[in-house]
């Protein structure tokens, strides 16, 4: 268990709803859900999920902390916003799902190796390094996330597209060495650290 998680458990004991309200983005909306089920029925990926938003909200109220934070459902959201549009109580469901995913990731309770989570992590690491997304390195990192052999296979499978992008000047092979970056990289790092600090303070994670 991560330290953050141990602290959270000690602090909120069995009141998971309160934890969500205080620490998850838009979490204070969860109690407004009236369990009508329109979000669950409207989700195009609904049948592929472990838990629908409706169910997640009820699980939060029921204090099912491990199940909620360990669920893959929040990571399956494609942000189509059908649920937000149709929710009769105007809950920002998509945002709550993203908030839950983010919180589960912070506590390191999110499912290990969940593809969306891995991509998000790679993207973030890639971005904050230089302040610019290095698309070549990001693509390669994705190819090789499941090991070297799988990475070669992925790269072979995608080489046509890669060459096409290069021809169209959408992908620069020289990016592999250094690549484009912001002028003030330490400044970017400071900025991100400060933002994290502010957010953690606001969410009681400091």
């Amino acid at each position: 268990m991560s330290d953050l998680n141990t602290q959270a458990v000690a602090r909120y004991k069995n009141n998971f709803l309160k934890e969500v309200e205080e620490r998850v983005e838009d979490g204070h909306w969860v109690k407004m859900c009236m369990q009508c089920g329109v979000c669950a029925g409207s989700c195009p990926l609904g049948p592929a999920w472990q838990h629908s938003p409706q169910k997640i909200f009820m699980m939060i109220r029921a204090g099912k902390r491990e199940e909620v934070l360990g669920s893959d459902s929040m990571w399956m959201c494609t942000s189509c916003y059908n649920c937000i549009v149709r929710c009769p109580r105007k809950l920002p469901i998509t945002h709550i799902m993203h908030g839950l995913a983010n919180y589960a990731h912070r506590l390191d309770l999110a499912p290990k190796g969940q593809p969306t989570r891995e991509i998000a992590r790679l993207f973030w690491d890639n971005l904050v390094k230089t302040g610019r997304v290095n698309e070549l390195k990001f693509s390669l990192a994705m190819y090789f996330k499941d090991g070297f052999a799988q990475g070669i296979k992925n790269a072979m499978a995608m080489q046509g597209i890669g060459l096409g992008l290069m021809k169209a000047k959408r992908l620069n092979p020289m990016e592999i060495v250094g690549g484009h970056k912001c002028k003030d990289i330490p400044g970017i790092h400071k900025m991100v650290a400060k933002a994290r600090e502010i957010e953690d303070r606001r969410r009681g994670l400091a």
Partner: protein
Amino acid sequence: MTASIATNQTILVVGGGISGMTAALEAAECGKQVILVEKTPTLGGRTAQLYRYFPKMCHPTCGLEINLRRIKGNPNVKVMTMTEVTAVAGARGNYNVTLKVAPRYVNENCTACGDCGKAVTTEVADVFNYGQGKTGAKVKAAYLPHVMAYPQRYVIDPSIVGTPEGEAAKSACKYGAVDLGMKEETVQLNVGAVVWATGWRPFDANKIQPYGYDRYANVITSVEFERLADPHGPTGGKILRPSDGKEAKNVAFIQCAGSRDENYLRHCSRICCMATLKQTQYVREAFGDEGKSTVYYIDIRAIDRFEDFYAKVWQDKTVSFVKSKVARIAENAANGNPVLHGVDTEGYHRYATEHDLVVLAVGMEPEVKGVKLPDDIVLDSSSFIEGSKDGGMFGAGAAASPLDVNRAVQSATAASLKAIQVIHKSASTEAA
């Protein structure tokens, strides 16, 4: 003409449905002078369009007849149909009201014999049977609004005035009752208090995009279903679905169609749960054990004594309940059956269920929503009338809040009492 009888001791009641009739009668029977104005050609309002009442399953025509008798027998009430209020000036105890009276093209000589209707071939939408909606009911352009209409007088639709059809109606009348030269009139009235009993209208189901009322023939509204069940309705009381006229034995009812929804109506319309429970019994009556009703709901709100009726319907083997707000409706192109998609809350099961017919239990919205009312009128967040700031105008019945008939009558009686108090106060001020 009318102006001469109205004084600041007169109460104006706007709307001739069950609430307006009640408010007018209560005041009139206390000896007050009352003018009851109604926009349509007949009294009765939406109550007259119901087949049965819940929970006793009795017929609205019964109470309607009693009220009409009271009105006919009371010289204190003056009824003006086809009349709308266009302006209200002045203040509590002394209002100056402007009325617009639309031409009926039929005068007091009418005996409701029906000869004009027979002489005419043009048809118009039968508003009483929601003909502008899914029932598609038509009526001759010279018509009696419905069998219980008051006044019992025909109406000529303006569309045939000035055409040979209009002349045919005129020449068919043996009593000289058809007067095609009638013009719109404006009337000024002096009144002391105003009761707004302008009622409700069903929420426009076209706005609920995922339910496809506009796309699928067999998705209808609860008010239309009410007409289907009524022997005076367009199908003679048979529950036939619009697409192919087949008997609809497997009926789905979707609750909160528009209500309790920040996207449509933010209030609970209160009546729809009971109306649906009642309508499941129409299905049972029509098809016995072969009928099947499925109610899709968020919560069933059968308040106080209605709980007994809910318990009774719950026992009915032909009725089942699914705790879920339906997410969307699709259509089985092969047979025209609507297919309901959603996830239920009791177990989170995903379903895709086919029915012969879907009835949307549409919410109530105030008839005056979007209408320019006097500046002094205060509306709530759903446009229901709370009253006027000067305390001389009152909302009554479904204009004031989404209410069933029973509670609308209570509300109207209360509003009537308040109006009487205004009249008494202004009378005593003048005397002093």
